[in-house]
C-alpha cells in the first residue's frame, strides 16, 4: 500500500518568506531559479566496482557503482546484455530514513532512472553478448543515497550515468564452446562499457506558483509537486515523472520542460568531463 506520507509542518510565516525570496528570482540559497547548486562528480572511487561515481549536489551525496556479471539474456533479447538498476536510501542519509528494503520512493527513483537509461538505449546492450543467445553481461547499477539535502533523483542519475560511462569490462579469459561456460578475470579490466549517449534528469519543483530546478531539502518540503524530465544529449525527452501530492497545469508542464531542456546540457557536460579517459 502506498500511503500519504507525514509532511513536515511549515509555519505560514516561513512559507511566505520562502515565496518572497522566490519572487526575486532566487532559490533560498540565493542562486537563480534555473541553476543548480555546485556539482561534484568523482569517478572510480570504489576499486572493487567495475565503475563507480560519488556525486554531490550541494550537500546531497550519492554513491553509484556498476558491477558486471556473466549471466543469461532475457528470452526476447537473446543477443543483448541485461541492465538492472537498484537504489537504496541509506539510513545514514537522513534522520527520517529507516533501515530495511527500499521503500516506494527508492523504488520509484530506481525505476525512473532505469527507464531513462533503457528507452534511449544509453548503454549499448547489443554489444554486451558474450555467447549470443546464451551468455551476456549483466550490468548491475546500484545507487546509494548517502546524504539527503534534496533532489535525490538528479544526483542519483548523475552518479549512475558517470558510473556507467567510467566502467570497464573484465577480461574474458575463456569460453567453453560446448557448455558456454565463461571464465572472466575481474582483476584485469579492459574496454570501457559501450555508451551510446548521455542522459540526465532535471527535476523541477513547483512552490506556490514558482517553478525551480534542483530544489534543496527545505524547498522540497514546501513544494506541492515535482516534475522530473529526462533529457538526452541530443535534446530529446527520454522520460518524465510527476511526483508529489499536488498538480501541474498544462502551461506549467510546458514551462518545466523548457527549463529542463535549457539546463540539461550543463549537467551532461559535467558528467562528460568527469569521465574523460
Amino acid at each position, binding site marked *: *500500500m*502506498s*500511503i*500519504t506520507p*507525514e509532511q513536515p509542518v511549515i509555519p505560514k510565516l516561513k512559507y511566505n518568506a520562502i515565496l518572497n525570496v522566490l519572487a526575486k528570482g532566487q532559490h533560498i540559497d540565493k542562486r537563480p531559479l534555473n541553476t543548480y547548486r555546485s556539482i561534484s562528480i568523482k569517478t572510480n572511487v570504489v576499486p572493487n566496482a567495475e565503475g563507480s561515481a560519488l556525486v554531490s549536489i550541494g550537500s546531497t551525496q550519492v554513491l553509484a557503482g556498476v558491477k558486471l556479471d556473466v549471466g543469461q539474456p532475457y528470452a*526476447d*533479447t537473446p543477443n*543483448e546484455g541485461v541492465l538492472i538498476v537498484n537504489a537504496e536510501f541509506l539510513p545514514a542519509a537522513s534522520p527520517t530514513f529507516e533501515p530495511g528494503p527500499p521503500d*516506494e*520512493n527508492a*523504488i*520509484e527513483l*530506481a*525505476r525512473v532512472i532505469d*527507464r531513462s537509461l533503457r*528507452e*534511449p538505449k544509453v548503454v549499448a546492450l547489443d554489444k554486451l553478448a558474450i555467447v549470443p543467445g546464451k551468455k551476456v553481461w549483466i550490468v548491475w547499477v546500484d545507487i546509494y543515497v548517502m546524504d539527503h539535502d534534496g533532489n535525490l533523483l538528479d544526483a542519483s542519475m548523475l552518479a549512475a550515468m558517470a558510473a556507467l560511462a567510467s566502467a570497464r569490462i573484465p577480461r574474458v579469459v575463456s569460453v567453453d564452446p560446448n557448455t558456454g561456460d565463461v571464465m572472466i578475470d575481474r582483476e584485469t579490466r579492459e574496454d570501457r562499457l559501450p555508451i551510446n549517449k548521455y542522459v540526465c534528469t532535471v527535476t523541477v519543483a513547483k512552490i506556490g506558483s514558482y517553478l525551480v530546478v534542483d530544489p534543496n531539502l527545505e524547498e522540497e518540503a514546501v513544494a506541492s509537486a515535482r*516534475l522530473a524530465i*529526462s533529457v*538526452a544529449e541530443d*535534446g*530529446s*525527452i*527520454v*522520460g*518524465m*515523472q*510527476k*511526483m*508529489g*501530492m*499536488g*498538480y*501541474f*497545469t*498544462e502551461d506549467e*508542464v*510546458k514551462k518545466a*520542460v523548457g527549463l529542463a*531542456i535549457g539546463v540539461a546540457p550543463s549537467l551532461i557536460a559535467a558528467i562528460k568531463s568527469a569521465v574523460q579517459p
Partner: protein
Amino acid sequence: MGSSSEKPQLIIDGKRIDGRAFDELRPIEMEVGVLKNADGSAIVAFGNTRVLAAVYGPREVMPKHVALADRAVIRCRYRMLSFSAEERKSPAPSRREIELSKVIREALEPAIMSELFPRTTIDIFIEVLNADGGTRTTGITAAALALADAGVPMRDLVAGVAVGKVDGKLVLDINKVEDMYGEADMPVAAMPSLGRITLLQLNGVLTHEEFVEALALALKGIRKIYELQKEALRKKYVTTEEA
C-alpha cells in the same frame, strides 16, 4: 517499447492495428457500485483492459500512528491479478506495482478533500482483472468513480488515458501491442474541469514538439472520458456502444 525482431506494422492505411483512428478511444464500459461490502466500487473497461476499484472510508486507521492530525491518509494499492496478463504474474508485489500504487495515489490526492476527515483513512484498492495496455489510467478512472460512489467529497473527478507514439505517429489510448512495439507510452491523468494534471509519466522518447502535441491529445481524451464518468455516476452503468 521492448526491442523485438518481429515488430508488427502498427499503422496501416492511416488506421491503427485495431482499426481505430489516431485520436480514437477504445470502446469504454463503466459500472458503478459493483460490490456489496465496499463503501464505493466501480469496474471500468477500456477495450480488453478491465479494472476493478473499491474504496473503504473515511474510516479509522490501524495502526493508529499512521494517522495524520490535519487530514485523512490515502492508502492505495494497485495490483495485477495473477491471470490478468499473458504470462502468469506472481502474487508477490512487484516493483512496478509498488511504483504505480504511489503515482496513482498521487494522481488522486489532489482531488480528494482529505482535510475534511483528519485522523481517518481512505483506502483505495485497484485490481486489474485483464490487462491490455493502459491499466494505470483505467485504474485511476475507476478509482475516481469508486470514490464518488463512496460519497468521498472531491474537488473534481480524475480521468486518465495513455498517449503513445507508434510507427512515428502520436495515438490516443494505446493498447498492449502498441505499448510493446511503440516508441513511447505517456500516461496522463487530470481533473478535467479544473485543468489540473495529476499524473504524468513518459516511458520512451519524444521530441519537444511531439511532447507538447501528445499532452494536448491526452487532455482531449481525458475530457471525453470525463463525460462518460459523469454519465456513469448518474446511470450506474454506461458503455460507449450505447453512447
